[in-house]
């Protein structure tokens, strides 16, 4: 008779980073371990304003299930999150709000612009719409499409995971990074 509780035996583990191992020890660089941990437990902060937001909801739902990539825990406070997902049209009036949300996130923080609107203003070539969120905050990954399918959004998040894995621990202290922040007037 089978047991009443079935255990999921298909749990997939992340591969260990490159390193040296011998009997009873394993050594690798700190960067890689931290990068791996960060990449596989991103906390998404959805900033969904319009149609692209609906696709994002589908991405979070059980069919596409972003939880498979370690990012199922959405936080609706910027202070707990490290991945800002901007999905939808951002009007100029909302620009300062978005910037404020970004400022409230703690380092390290990453931003994905989902869809044509967030990336470039999209079809709204008009007086009221921000022509791409990279005018107010720095963006790490752009996902094209109007709207992108959930597969596209997942692809964008996987691309971001690659970035996060490869990010040096000192990047946020570098002059280049500080220069980037300064160019946005953030210090």
């Amino acid at each position: 008779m089978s047991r009443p509780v079935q255990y999921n035996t298909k749990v997939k583990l992340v591969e260990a980073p490159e390193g040296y191992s011998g009997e009873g020890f394993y050594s690798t660089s700190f960067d890689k371990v931290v990068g791996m941990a960060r990449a596989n437990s991103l906390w998404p902060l959805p900033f969904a304003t319009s149609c692209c937001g609906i696709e994002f909801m589908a991405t979070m739902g059980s069919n596409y299930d972003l939880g498979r990539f370690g990012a199922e825990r959405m936080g609706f406070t910027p202070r707990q999150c490290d991945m800002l997902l901007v999905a939808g049209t951002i009007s100029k009036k909302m620009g300062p709000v978005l910037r404020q949300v970004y400022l409230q996130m703690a380092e390290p923080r990453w931003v994905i612009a989902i869809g044509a609107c967030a990336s470039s203003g999209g079809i709204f070539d008009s007086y009221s719409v921000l022509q791409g969120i990279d005018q107010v905050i720095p963006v790490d990954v752009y996902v094209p499409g109007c709207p992108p399918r959930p597969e596209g959004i997942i692809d964008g998040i996987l691309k971001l995971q690659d970035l996060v894995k490869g990010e040096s621990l000192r990047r946020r202290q570098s002059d280049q990074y500080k220069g980037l922040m300064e160019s946005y007037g953030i210090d």
Partner: protein
Amino acid sequence: MALTNETIQEKLTEKFGEQLTEWEVPYGMLTFRAPAEMNLKVLQHLYDAMGFQFMTDLTGVHFPDRKGEELSVVYHLHNLVDNIRLRMKIYVPVEKPDVYTATKLFSTANWMERETYDFFGFNFVGHPNLIRILNVDEMDYFPMRKEYQMEDPTRVDKDDEMFGR
């Protein structure tokens, strides 16, 4: 007796005579034009004597070709008792778009007049708080006026490189 388009027109003509013009009934909704400086008098009369106590909409239109009366304010009023609606239009020149505010009569006109100011630049005389409502505060033009090119060559916020222009 319930009001109809005909009886409304009769009653208004009785009261205001020839000052109300351009009577029309597009799609069954009575529409007329009033002199700009009389807008409050007509609204007050409609409110007090004829039961039009609900302002459903207040908006603006820009007619660049009508010299001397380029800007128009359109009031939509609803009589809830007789369930009948009407539309009143006034015209002002674009150089001096002064319109008396309807906020004393209809509180709902407050935000709607702000919106109309925001997009068309009407100066609602007597409005308690005439500032932009939907657009960014820094904006220094009135975007819904028909006086701008389709593609603004001076725009800097669009990255042409990405759009193959």
